[in-house]
């Protein structure tokens, strides 16, 4: 599992947190991921600036 955030793009809006079905994300300044992430990619598709990349 590889969840990566481009901090240069991220606006810290927390949109990824809102749509994560597994509560794997939390907005702590920048969003942070924990081991509940299943690499479903919903946060990647939702991010308004595509700052997140998830590799399965």
């Amino acid at each position, binding site marked *: 599992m590889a969840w990566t955030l481009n901090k240069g793009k991220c606006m810290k*809006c*927390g949109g990824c947190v*809102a749509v994560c079905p597994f509560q794997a994300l939390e907005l702590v300044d920048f969003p942070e991921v924990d081991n509940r992430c299943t690499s479903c990619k919903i946060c990647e598709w939702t991010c*308004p600036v595509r700052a997140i990349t998830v590799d399965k």
Partner: protein
Amino acid sequence: MSENFDVIIVGAGPAGSCAARKMAEAGLSVMVYDRRAELGTPVRCGEGINGNAEEVIGNIPHRAICARIIGGRIYAPNGRMLEADVTKTGQKGGYVLDRKVFDKWLAREAARAGAFIQANTLVTDLLIENGRIAGVRGKRWGDPFEAKAKVVVCATGAESRLGAQSGLKTHCSMQLVDTCIQYEMSDIDIEGQSDWEKFLHIWVGNKLAPRGYYWVFPKGDRSANVGIGIVPSNEREKSALYYHEKFLDSHPGLRNGRILEVKGGVVPVGGLMQDMVVDNFVLCGEAAHHVNAIHGGGIKEAIFSGRIAADVIIDCMQRNDLSKSALSMFNLRWWEERGRRLRSVEKVREVFEKMTDDDFNMLADAITAEDVFDLARGEKLSVLAKALMKKPGLLGLARHLL
């Protein structure tokens, strides 16, 4: 200060502050925590509000109002414009707010009523004792803290996972959100319109804003919130930012504007919940998806939601019963006062989402901007249904409304 309250509210946005004010006025001890160092910022919002919200919260101070709006201009994909000036029919019109001032004003009103408010305090967990929610845990100045309350109100907005700890299904389905990006811009114009600053501007069309819309909300002195919200898709290569920039490129009056602020966000536009309470816990505002699914506006809904939550909690405190069954009055009252209407709005959205650009062009010939405003209030769905029935292929959508 005692770390024990009647009520802890997480989030000092419109829902949290309005709930806090009402409960403090009723004599409850109320603490509001907010993770942000400055309330009201960052803004994740177009900042528009209907003036009739003042009937509930009182007069909004002038310093919180950037611009007064008399109506809207809606643009179909083929460029046809629908205009409504609501002040002609005696309505109040609306405002584009400065949320940084507005949110602090609401918080100050709550404080004046006696509520405690603490910014820069991150609530990370619900505190569970004997299997019941007994307060919250979090970090203040980097140090862990714990505070207890008889009831916790979660008014965090959608971008928090705190609410999910209650066991309620709070996360937003990807199909039921708008992913948004907005610039606050100065030195802009809408070509060919000398009076553009009096109106909210909405462009619809699947090419420019797939299953969403593009907006310009004036903030006075040739400045505005300029943004886009679209439904996320796993099939689409491009981000909301891409569509935003593309729209600016095709509108020189906007493109030449100066970018003063960049904001992003994800707004729930559907997924209304039947159940928003558990023992000692109430979910309200955007955290409970209390947003208008047509325009994505959440300020007014948050205010209603927070105030209904406050009413119910005040009543439950008097009866000394904060069980799920007692707090369920919130579900009943919210659905009665706001939910039924928002569900109708959601139905209209479900129809809009299935329409092609040709359908929108056809619709723009068949209905007025006033009709669109009614639809966005969840009213007169039959007008839309009647217009859709004119095209055989849209009968199914018409039926969905009736």
